[in-house]
């Protein structure tokens, strides 16, 4: 009995310490974001203030960077989801020459260090006038996530019973209608998960907009946060406030899609 109890205590002690290690930066971030500027480091501030948030949220540069971040991340997310549906359907339902080879190619691309393509892309974008445009960033981010989206969506389509597809075809739906009325609705849980994953990846992407954009009014929040580390001093409280704002969209999306996430991760589609 005592042995078991001791083990229990030790396990929980370790887990608690681990949890603290993860939580401390967050707590510090929250505390810092409500502190006046003179409070530097991990200390309890003399007063709490909303000034950092106020300053960040009234600063048009920051507001614009949030807006840019949303446009670029959401744009790229929808781009890759929309362009993933077709290939996913074809890979899942049609048979053609070199299908396995192509599919393995897609799988390889999901793990490919795409950032290594940034330099040729940079030059290509300059040549084609896509450099320093929102569309350029959306295109690159969208393509970045396309392979994994195709792969996951294909697996989701694979789970839809063949007889359901056949029923829809006999019922008078062609390929497109069957895709719209049967495949996509049945894959909504997976799509919700994909939207979140894509969004979070795009929202957090620093390199792509950093390299493909130069005008400061186009920079998204991920790049803008970096600009706090300026030449003279760092405004830690405002940095913290903006960082918290930076996490909000992802958290909100998670909450909205929780229902679908659970469904998608715990069994998928049932007939």
């Amino acid at each position: 009995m005592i042995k078991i109890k001791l083990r229990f205590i030790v396990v929980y002690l370790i887990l608690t310490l681990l949890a603290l290690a993860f939580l401390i930066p967050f707590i510090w971030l929250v505390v810092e974001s409500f502190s006046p500027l003179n409070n530097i480091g991990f200390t309890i501030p003399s007063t709490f203030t909303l000034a950092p948030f106020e300053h960040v949220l009234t600063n048009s540069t920051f507001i614009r960077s949030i807006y840019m971040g949303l446009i670029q991340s959401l744009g790229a997310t929808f781009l890759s989801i929309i362009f993933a549906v077709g290939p996913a359907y074809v890979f899942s339902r049609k048979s053609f020459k070199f299908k396995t080879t192509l599919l393995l190619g897609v799988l390889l691309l999901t793990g490919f260090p795409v950032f290594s393509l940034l330099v040729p892309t940079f030059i290509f974008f300059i040549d084609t006038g896509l450099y320093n445009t929102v569309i350029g960033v959306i295109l690159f981010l969208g393509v970045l996530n396309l392979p994994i989206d195709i792969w996951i969506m294909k697996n989701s389509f694979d789970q839809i019973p063949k007889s359901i597809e056949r029923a829809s075809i006999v019922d008078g739906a062609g390929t497109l209608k069957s895709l719209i009325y049967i495949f996509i609705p049945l894959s909504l849980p997976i799509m919700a998960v994909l939207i979140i994953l894509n969004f979070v990846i795009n929202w957090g992407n620093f390199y792509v907009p950093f390299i493909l954009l130069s005008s400061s009014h186009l920079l998204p929040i991920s790049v803008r946060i970096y600009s706090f580390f300026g030449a003279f001093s760092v405004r830690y409280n405002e940095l913290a406030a903006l960082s918290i704002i930076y996490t909000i969209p992802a958290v909100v999306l998670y909450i909205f899609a929780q229902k679908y996430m659970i469904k998608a991760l715990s069994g998928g589609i049932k007939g």
Partner: protein
Amino acid sequence: MSSVEMKNITKMYDKVTVLKDLNLKIDDQEFFVLLGPSGSGKSTTLNTMAGLDTPTSGNILFDSEDVTYFDPNKRGVAMVFQDYALYPHMNVYKNMAFPLKMKRYKNDYINKKINEVANILGIKELLKRLPRELSGGQAQRVALGRALVRDPKIFLLDEPLSNLDAKIRSQIRNELKLIHNDLKKTFVYVTHDQQEAMYLGDRVGILNDGVIQQVGTPQEVYSHPKNLFVAKFLGEPEINIFELDKNDGGFKIGGVPVDGHNFDKLNKITIGIRPENILLEKKSERDMPLKIVIRAKEFTGSGFIIIASTDEGKEIRIISDQANMDVGDLITAYIDYEHAILFDEQGDSINK
């Protein structure tokens, strides 16, 4: 109004031939059952009729119109699947409305039609439920309803009752027969269950290894099977088979000669006799006696199945309404010559 004709249909997947030069003619308003063991190609046959598969060669005619390369939605067929294939994200109403929506019917008409069919099938109170909230029997009724709302020319049913339990199965089987009588439409029904086939079919086509073995009314195929496969596949318990070698220039069982046309050319024949045609009392001089030992007796409700073995150790089954014998008794039973079915060495049936 629709007849179906399959002309020289061959279907290959890669290098495997699933259907071999299949010819079939299904009449208008007929309830036609395709019967065969799994892997015999019966579902493939149905899928080629539906347009879900294209034959490698051959033609399919609906009312003498060649539809071989028509899309499924241009063929005017409705299909019911073994696993119901209801759309999981739509409720019953929307499931039934789907084929009509695809044809761009007006909502008023869709509503009227669904209510009409729901009344016939007794699923009116299920209309708002999702497929996962239905029992197997209910789900298959809905699937049937989804086919019925369309007023198709031809109904294709792919083992629709196989996933149901016995009681519901016989109930829906009855309903199916009545629906067919009311609608007067062409039904093509695929099954591996010979009893279902004989109960439902106006005619039955028996398929094995992608080849049609025999087509005929249930009585025909049961009483006059064209070959051993058909004889063995139909009937429960299975037909009793006796293989005879030529002896002294003829074939004999228990000293009684078995003869027929051109038997002198054959070296071997096979006699098939249905369990109900083995008699416990001699009926005619040509009936062949069998000395058997009773092994077991099974009560079936309307009679008995007697399991016995001959003195050569062969197990036979007899259906009889009397069973005034006990396990272990030695008795003589008789093969009813009139009902015996004879096959040559290749397993094809021969005339007596």
